[in-house]
């Protein structure tokens, strides 16, 4: 069966959630016994916040026995990271950051730091064996998304017995640095990334997990329920490349 995944131009969070819902519905409906070919429209594969969750869902389907092929360029901008073994996509991570390597080593370090923190979060909290990284840039703007189909942030809090009022509350806690881990093992990943993106790069952090979405821009944080449910977590970082070199460690706790 051939499935065409289309999307309109994403101009708002609402457009994005509608497209993501369509992706989830289309993939969840695929019968396992048949071979399927996914034709992904360029607007999806070129938008990291769509490409990452799509690639994560495709991988999840494949691991559950579904025969899924990607037609044309597929999801070239994405990289699969596996928790149990060395990723064969390591060279792709190098190529993700290589556009900055020579002229802007500070941005290379910053992107690597953000990717590393988000991947560490998947390994340590999501209870899944893989995550997906997607990256895109044009002119002076860039977008980096990391997605997984693990247990989600609210479920991670509930698992350790931490009280949360709602999924939105869980995301607010996560971005504030409230960790499920002990003092000597906890990180400051999300809170540092938020600082880097909103202060250092004048950008925005979008976090989706379970039934809530959080957006953080400058000093503003808005967390609310969303109309769809994502089993796992998607983090999207978008920003503008600054003209002056960025000192990553001034934003890292």
């Amino acid at each position: 069966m051939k499935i065409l995944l289309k999307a309109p131009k994403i101009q708002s969070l609402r457009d994005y959630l509608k497209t993501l819902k369509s992706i989830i519905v289309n993939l969840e409906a695929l019968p396992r016994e048949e071979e399927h070919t996914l034709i992904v429209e360029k607007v999806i594969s070129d938008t990291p916040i769509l490409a990452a969750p799509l690639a994560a869902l495709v991988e999840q389907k494949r691991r559950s026995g579904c025969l899924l092929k990607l037609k044309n360029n597929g999801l070239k901008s994405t990289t699969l990271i596996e928790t149990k073994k060395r990723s064969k996509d390591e060279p792709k991570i190098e190529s993700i950051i290589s556009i900055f390597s020579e002229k802007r080593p500070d941005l290379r370090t910053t992107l690597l730091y953000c990717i590393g923190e988000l991947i560490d979060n998947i390994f340590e909290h999501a209870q899944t064996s893989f995550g997906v990284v997607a990256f895109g840039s044009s002119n002076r703007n860039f977008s980096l998304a990391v997605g997984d189909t693990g247990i989600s942030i609210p479920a991670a809090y509930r698992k350790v017995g931490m009280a949360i009022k709602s999924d939105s509350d869980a995301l607010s806690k996560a971005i504030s640095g409230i960790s499920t881990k002990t003092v000597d093992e906890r990180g400051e990943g999300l809170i540092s990334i938020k600082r880097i993106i909103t202060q250092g790069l004048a950008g925005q952090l979008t976090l989706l997990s379970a039934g809530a979405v959080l957006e953080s821009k400058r000093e503003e944080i808005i967390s609310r329920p969303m109309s769809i449910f994502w089993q796992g977590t998607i983090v999207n970082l978008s920003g503008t490349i600054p003209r002056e070199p960025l000192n990553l460690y001034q934003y890292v706790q």
Partner: protein
Amino acid sequence: MSSKTKTYRLKKIFGTFLWGRHMAVELRDLILRDNLTEAVVDFSGVIFVTRAFADELLKIKNFFNRKNLYLNFRQMNSEVAKMFSHLTSTVSVNPAPRLRVVRGKFNQ
């Protein structure tokens, strides 16, 4: 006492990107199996390490020091070195009191 040294080339064992505490723990287990007095951890070819990996490796280094097994880090590129330097200059490496969550009712 005879000394025994071995070099662990991280790129060969794990690849060029090192992430997660689990990789550092895996390295620790490799070192423990070899019954050494000194272990050289060679970072040649390693492009980047995450904060979790570096933090865990520093804890493992401290743990081995107390057991008279010395870890020497070599051939770090500038980004890897900066990550370790950042960690050793912050609180995370210094032992912090472990908080234990106690659930249940307290009798007054």
